[in-house]
């Protein structure tokens, strides 16, 4: 708790306000009278460290840096000491307001987190299957079409967090290894199966493409054999059990391409 010097060892701030608040509270500065030059200096020091490692998150932090610098310069403008009842606003006012609101939210978030943890200690049970108690079967559904299913599926995809895909792009090589391992595991289990069934577990287009590429690679290495009895019929994939090295990674060939 009592670290002698400020900031830098804590890289995980959720945003510029989080960082700023941390600097202010840590130095026990008065939030209503922030020593802006001091805070700006510390903030910039943190930022330059961060920019070396977390380039992508820096933009919001940079905006705040600009705000701090602008406040600092406005405060350096000469003022009359007798100016007590001036209508001119303290350039820090908005920032202070924002910090206070943010701090309130931060505390609430912590309270919520604790509540969720308490709640996570309680377990309920799956609803009982009541069908034996139903006198007649369930009333038939009305007005559902197959398009409701398609819409429902689309709704799920709209909701899927972006990070899944963002990670896929950056770690394409790793993902290929996963896909390959997964595919081999399934092939070993099934022995032989249809091409279509094999691709069905793919949730995204890139997973589909990855699975397909891995399959080609496995064919090339003669770990699987593919047979198509007639043109356009489903291709059968047969595992030939040649991959003695269980974790052999055909995907490695792809990381250049």
């Amino acid at each position, binding site marked *: 708790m009592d670290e002698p010097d400020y900031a830098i060892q804590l890289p995980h701030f959720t945003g510029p306000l989080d960082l700023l608040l941390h600097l202010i509270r840590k130095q026990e500065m008065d939030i209503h009278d922030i020593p802006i030059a001091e805070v700006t200096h510390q903030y910039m020091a943190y930022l330059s460290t961060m920019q070396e490692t977390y380039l992508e998150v820096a933009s919001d932090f940079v905006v705040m840096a600009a705000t701090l610098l602008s406040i600092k310069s406005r405060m350096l403008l000469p003022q009359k000491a007798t100016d007590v009842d001036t209508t001119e606003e303290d350039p820090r006012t908005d920032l202070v307001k924002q910090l206070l609101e943010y701090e309130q939210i931060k505390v609430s978030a912590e309270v919520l987190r604790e509540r969720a943890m308490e709640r996570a200690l309680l*377990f*309920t*049970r*799956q*609803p*009982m*299957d*009541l*069908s034996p*108690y*139903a*006198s007649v*079967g*369930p*009333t*038939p*559904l*009305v*007005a*559902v*079409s*197959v*398009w*409701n*299913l*398609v*819409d*429902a*599926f*689309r*709704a*799920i*995809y*709209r*909701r*899927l967090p*972006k990070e*899944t*895909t*963002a990670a896929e792009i950056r770690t394409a090589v790793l993902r290929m290894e996963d896909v390959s391992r997964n595919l081999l595991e399934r092939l070993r*289990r099934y022995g032989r199966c249809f091409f279509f069934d094999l691709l*069905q*577990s793919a*949730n*995204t*287009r*890139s997973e589909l493409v990855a699975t397909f590429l891995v399959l080609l690679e496995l064919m090339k290495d003669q770990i699987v054999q593919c047979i198509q009895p007639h043109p356009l019929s489903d291709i059968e994939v047969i595992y030939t059990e040649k991959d003695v090295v269980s974790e052999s990674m055909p995907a490695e060939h792809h990381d250049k391409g």
Partner: protein
Amino acid sequence: MRQVMLLQIVPALEAVLFAAGTDGLSTQELAGILQVPPHEVVALCDELRQHLSTRESGIQLLEVAGVWQLSTRAEHAHYLHRMTESSTSTTLSPAALETLAIVAYRQPITRSKIESIRGVHSDRALQTLLYRQLIAEVGRENAPGRPILYGTTDHFLQTFGLLSLADLPELPEEPQAEKLVLFEQESALPRD
């Protein structure tokens, strides 16, 4: 002294059996969870059974095929019957519909895979779909715990007017993450 210690575990036993639901737990499994020897599990279960009956609880402890399981009592069946009546509706909730869509397009599929796609627990939605006979257990996955695999039923095909699963409409071009950001507005889907 030992006896007293053991009795303190009875509420824990009740809690564990409660959460285990319809599957119940074997003596062996209970011994592992409660960290007591198997023969003491049996004594504890007897104790719990007695507790439940003397305190006129609405639930009872049964031993079926070597598995301990909590259940409701026969005399309350008519209340449960009334429960099914209040819950039958002629539409599916959005949650049930989503779950059904996943089962339809990704079958056979386990509950945990469904939940990882939807991002939330799907017990209730699955229960509804099973009750409505739109989906059914179609096997077990060859994986630890041998989880149940679900698939759609003939009744599903009938309800949605499909000849076979091959008749399911193709999914729209998969929205990639980029698209999620760019097209936040709902775009109208082509209908036939």
